[in-house]
């Protein structure tokens, strides 16, 4: 059962006492119907896993949204756009200033500080939308907010292309 089914099942369970089984299923149905679109949208994987109760172990494939270092991403993954977790795709430029998150690497059990650099100045990649947001905060704490477009800062161009997840250090 993928996370989206889990959301829906969970939500349906929650709705069950206040709704007929039929409309609960309706809610699942429409949620799943939305699935075609939702990969393009800010879907909250953290929420999904919470709803699922048991969060699956994050994987080691940087082209997938559940790659461990993506725990606080909100954007398109540069690893799907001709770049990687620490290099911008050809023709784009990294915003040197970033928000940071803290993610746990299941391979060594350590937590790392991740800098989420936006790559800028190229056509919107629009691939591998990933919206995990773990520990993401509001814009009045910009250094920990992934809601802000970081392109345009530090001499980078303004147009958003994709987001990297660069490992800075072991979290103290």
């Amino acid at each position, binding site marked *: 059962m993928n996370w989206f089914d889990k959301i829906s099942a*969970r*939500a349906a*369970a*929650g*709705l069950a*006492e*206040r709704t007929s089984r039929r*409309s609960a299923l*309706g*809610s699942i149905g*429409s*949620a799943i119907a*939305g699935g075609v*679109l*939702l990969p*393009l*949208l*800010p*879907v*909250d994987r*953290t*929420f*999904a896993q*919470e*709803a699922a*109760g048991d969060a699956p172990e994050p994987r080691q494939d940087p082209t997938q949204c559940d790659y461990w270092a993506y725990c*606080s991403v*909100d954007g398109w993954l540069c690893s799907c756009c001709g770049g990687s977790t620490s290099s911008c795709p050809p023709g784009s430029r990294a915003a040197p*200033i970033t928000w*940071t*998150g*803290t993610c746990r690497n299941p391979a060594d059990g350590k937590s790392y500080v991740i800098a989420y650099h936006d790559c800028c*100045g*190229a*056509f*919107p990649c*629009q691939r591998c939308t990933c919206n995990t*947001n*773990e*520990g*993401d*905060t*509001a*814009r*009045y*704490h*910009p*250094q*920990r907010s992934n*809601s*802000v*477009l*970081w392109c*345009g*800062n530090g001499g980078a*161009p*303004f*147009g958003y*292309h994709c987001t990297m997840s660069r490992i800075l250090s072991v*979290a103290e």
Partner: protein
Amino acid sequence: MKRMPFALALAALVGMAGTPSAAQIDPASLPEPLTVETLPDKPDGARWVWIASFTNYAHADLIDADTGRLLGTIELGYQGVLPQIPRSGDEIYNHAVYMSRGFHGDLVEVVEIFDAKTLEIRGEIPIDPPKAMRGLPSINLTTLTDNDRFLVQSFFTPALSFGVVDLERRTFVGEIETGGCAHAMAAGPRRFFSLCGDGAVLTVDLDENGAESARESHPGFFDAEGDPLHPTGARSGDAWYFASVRGVMHAVDASGGGIEFQEPWTFREEDDAGVWVPAAPFQHMAIHHASGRLFLLMSVVPDLERKPGGYDFHRGPGFETWVFDIESRERLARHKMDKPTAAIAVSQDDAPLLYASTYTHVDIYDAGTGEVTRTLNPDVEVRDVVVMMQPWD
């Protein structure tokens, strides 16, 4: 529906009865005159709504919610969110950023001035150097002061500050530095406030030219680390309401030129689905002023445990809309959403509609009963994501 006579159908569908393209054509009426539409006068009781769709270059469609008719469209620029509609006057403003070569080239930041009747662009006010904050669609990045004269825009460089534009003199007044405060909420004829990283509210007063004349920090409005506020609050009268991540409502009362904090009240609730807290995909709060009802889009999480770095903002879709009486703080209803919902808004008439973005479309609910009545233009493919709705009542 029963097939209407063509002229009627045209009138309903295109809003121009007696067009020469009616079934019977008088050759003397040809060639048809070439014209440009202007917005019709809003009929009494009509419910119009701006529906903003967002991806890269954004736009807002003005829709008659009762007929579904598209009345007009304005361009919002790169990652634009919503136009600014003054209380009076015949203009609409949009704070926009553009690039000189599509998605690259030089950055340009302007306030574009639209004629509210023709939707033509009368002119633009350059903001130079450009410092606009952009990113996830958020409703309170831009505001108009209550005298409709000054537009205040959140700046991000990444230092947090504000830009002030004088709409009357058509000039950029200048930048107002802040100590880590973001989002601008109008709170008086020449006053706005902002939410700060230390949990304070910062009020800024402008003089008659739009320059800062006074500022005051009001600490202790909220617990920025322990229970941060969603900045996507809503205003009713002189009060602004903000929901926290853990489900506590905070209110700022700016009546009489002062700032008062109302006693916060907790509205989260736990059931077998988990803990119900505010959902924050795009816009989660709407207020029906006449009835004093506050609508809040809700999501469910297993617990309130804090993550490293802070609380998640739960950007997943909302599954319910909760209705509160602002006065008594009572929860009047829990409306189950028919589809995962990204944003809500409410019309201001006395049989109000609750607008709900389903990402691809807008569903319309009876705001009183919570019943979903229809999908607005279900057959229209929306290429972008419906992120924001603003009734134009």
